[in-house]
């Protein structure tokens, strides 16, 4: 598998009254290689790329709002790369809600160069974020020779006090190593812990290609 796509609804999410500098809620998608030890040095069981949007707390001076501090939902992307580590990029403040956005991650320089640690000659992955108002950013996860075999889509919550209404992820697709994009055709496997919750609003079918997934911190 060489990439994934989801179309997610832009809803305002917040860490709630209990939120402090180190809390976040995010609606996002990962592509990940789990059958590797190349990121274990960073306490990660997988190497991956993620994209979506996340809360950044009011007192986080590195959030995407101008000026700081200010409550923020930011489009972002990040990666955990073999033998290199973790990077996190805030892209843009979410200025528009109640419309669809999308994230797309796919390999576009598939040399799968081994041992790419301190140069920029390794594999590159495109991370394309289209915001709810239609701004489209194309970023690159570079020097990232991963062979992902997992896609995860949904919500991550760090710490309590979060409040997220239902969000939807639809038209879920994966990019094959043969260069074709494909709608997800099976219902996948859920991984849920309260207060997080997720379910299919509409499972993948010919009527709902890729399905309509829902997730929230309301369980």
């Amino acid at each position, binding site marked *: 598998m060489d990439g994934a796509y989801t179309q997610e609804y832009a809803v305002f999410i917040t860490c709630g009254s209990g939120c402090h500098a180190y809390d976040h809620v995010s609606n996002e998608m990962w592509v990940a290689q789990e059958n590797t030890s190349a990121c274990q040095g960073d306490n990660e069981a997988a190497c991956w790329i993620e994209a979506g949007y996340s809360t950044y707390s009011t007192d986080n001076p590195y959030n995407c709002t101008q000026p700081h501090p200010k409550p923020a939902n930011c489009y972002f992307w990040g990666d955990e790369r073999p033998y290199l*580590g973790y990077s*996190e990029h805030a892209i843009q403040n979410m200025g528009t809600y109640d419309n669809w956005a999308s994230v797309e991650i796919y390999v576009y320089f598939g040399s799968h160069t081994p041992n790419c640690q301190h140069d920029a000659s390794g594999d590159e992955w495109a991370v394309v974020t289209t915001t709810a108002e239609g701004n489209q950013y194309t970023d*690159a996860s*570079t020097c990232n020779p991963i062979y992902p075999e997992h896609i995860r889509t949904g919500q991550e919550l760090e*710490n309590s006090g979060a409040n997220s209404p239902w969000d939807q992820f639809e038209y879920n697709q994966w990019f094959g190593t043969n260069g074709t994009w494909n709608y997800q055709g099976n219902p996948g496997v859920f991984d849920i812990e309260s207060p997080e919750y997720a379910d299919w609003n509409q499972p993948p079918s010919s009527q709902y290609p890729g399905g309509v997934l829902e*997730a929230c911190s309301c369980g």
Partner: protein
Amino acid sequence: MRIRTIFLALIPICLVLLIVVAVIGWNLNPSVSAQSQSGPISHLTQKIHRVNGPSTGFSAIKPHLHPANSNEPTYTAADVQQFVMANGSPAGPLVSGAHMTFTKIMFVTAGSAALLPLGDETGYSSNALVCYVLVHGPFLPLNKHEYNPQGAPKPVQYTILIFDGVTGNFLYWGIPSSDINWSTVFKN
């Protein structure tokens, strides 16, 4: 397919940290319901405005120098130090009792930064000026997004911060792998 990804841990600064997820996961070779050759099928209805280049970051360090060359730093290493000392590591708090120190503050081209660990994702043209900052903690990486957390986050030694060398904007941050041998990276 996957084990649950919950943990509840008491960490040294007495915060109770909980990371939970609600995700759907697909393994390799999911079944196919349709195919397209040219890209994912988008059903977005808004008019798409392609932003040229990557995000140019968010205001951080205030420029105050006026170099003759437009591609030279408009602020100093001392300004960087002051900003980061005031705001801390984006990765998370210092481990109790630790003090942040600056291992490197380098004004380099994006092309040169790309040869340094985690310095290669600015998306800038190779001759653009960036500021590559390596700070030592250790830090508790509580702001890191984790794919499948299995326990309390372990302290990390370093954080990297990347700023635009001209505007002073903050571009991104990272936690370099513990596999990196810094004495080799900065051997010169």
